[in-house]
């Protein structure tokens, strides 16, 4: 079996999406708490707290600088954790995937449905964070609203990254490796809380090459400030291209794991 065979899909992928949405809506109150609360805490502690020592950063106030980062981080976290811990529990502990593939759905469709749901979760969370940040007046409207459709695309990227790790993790504890070796450094070093340009040049290139969050942050920052440049197209192309490759790879890795 090759790692890059393009999966055969049907609109049944949405059945899996629908299942996950139903579960999500059962506990929507607690699910909506993190995206509401987290940006407020970060804005006060970092934006207005640490930020009181910073007059201006790249031509803007510090809360303005970190606001798009907070949206980007919520896009990253919601899809990544949904498609790592969430999918792992459904795959291994609840045997949900086994139950579904006994129906006309294929494993490719199950995994694609999971990825689409991960992306949807990013969209839901990013929208809520966006509203909080808008309430603080830290965002240009209406251009900032473009973040909503963009969060689905960026969320899909983090979903595919998460699913690749889920497919190769021997047990659920092993998911700590990508979380702490990849997600946490990315959270700090992707132009989130300080400009990427402060880092040594080789590390800047490294971040642009392999840390997806850097591209997401630059696009979201441009959208919140209504300040566009052609370079953003490169970031967007990077996101789309890597998503496609990792989508195909994650589906095939999961197929290899589950279709024995």
């Amino acid at each position, binding site marked *: 079996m090759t790692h890059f065979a393009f999966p055969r899909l049907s609109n049944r992928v949405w*059945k899996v999406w629908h*299942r996950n949405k139903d*579960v999500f809506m059962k506990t929507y109150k607690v699910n909506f708490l993190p995206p509401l609360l987290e940006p407020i805490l970060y804005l006060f502690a970092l934006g207005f707290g640490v930020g009181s020592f910073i007059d201006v950063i790249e031509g803007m106030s510090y809360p303005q600088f970190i606001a798009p980062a907070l949206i980007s981080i919520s896009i990253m976290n919601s899809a990544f954790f949904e498609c790592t811990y969430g999918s792992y529990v459904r795959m291994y502990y609840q*045997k949900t995937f086994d139950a579904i593939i006994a*129906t*006309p759905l294929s494993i490719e469709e199950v995994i694609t449905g999971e990825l689409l749901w991960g992306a949807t979760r990013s969209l839901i969370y990013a929208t809520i964070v966006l509203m909080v940040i808008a309430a603080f007046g830290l965002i240009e409207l209406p251009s900032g609203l473009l973040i909503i459709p963009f969060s689905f695309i960026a969320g899909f990227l983090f979903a595919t990254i998460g699913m690749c790790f889920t497919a190769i993790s021997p047990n659920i504890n092993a998911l700590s490796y990508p979380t702490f070796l990849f997600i946490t450094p990315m959270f700090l070093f992707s132009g989130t809380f300080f400009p990427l340009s402060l880092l040594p040049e080789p590390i800047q290139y490294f971040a642009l090459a392999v840390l997806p969050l850097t591209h997401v942050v630059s696009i979201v920052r441009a959208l919140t400030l209504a300040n566009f440049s052609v370079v953003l197209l490169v970031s967007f192309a990077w996101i789309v291209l890597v998503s496609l490759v990792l989508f195909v790879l994650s589906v095939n890795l999961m197929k290899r794991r589950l279709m024995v």
Partner: protein
Amino acid sequence: MVVTVTVPVIEAEDLKKQFGEFVAVDSVSFTVEEGEVFGFLGPNGAGKTTTMKMIQCVSPKTGGKLEVFGMGVSTHQCEIKKLLGVVPQENNLDPDFTVYDNLMVYSRYFDIHRARAERVIEELLDFVQLREKKDTLIEQLSGGMKRRLILARALINTPRLLILDEPTIGLDPQARHLIWDKLKSLQSQGITIVLTTHYLEEAARLCDRLVIMDYGKIIVEGKPDELIKEYAETQSATLEDVFLKLTGKKLRE
């Protein structure tokens, strides 16, 4: 003139499954006809579950031929799976949902229209006697109730072939008898049933025909009473005596 050629429900020829070096199913051939209850018996690790999974199109075969309703398992997974109901060995009910929602969510995977699904679910809840548990979460069900719900779930698409992998595993006699009654009633409705079991009594009661597997091979095939007659040494012999005689008393795992 209409010529109807009856295709067997399952036809396996030299069917083989290998996991690396290990041969789990070693060139088995068998045929299951429409409307019969066909049993797979054998010690743990004999290859029964692997065979079931190949029939269900969730485990690709390594070699040989396997057709379900005349369709190849490697090429027509989706079409075959539409016609199947599966009761897996492990309980894989959805713990995030109630009894009713488990059935409703499952019906969507088969593209069953909501109105029809609601009607079928009502019937199935009565059939497996779980009406009062409709709004109960899965973790609050007893082992017997879970197995009954899985049976109901397997019937949601009114399957033509029902595959049961150890349907009564871990159940008390009452719960077991209830499942057996349900299976008999399904058989009388003309559904083809394939099951695996360790319980020889279960096989003797339910199966029209059965095979005994060991080390990935089919060692005998026949009707339960014929097998007893053929292989038993005493008058009062049971299928269990035949089983132990053929597969030996050595522990397998």
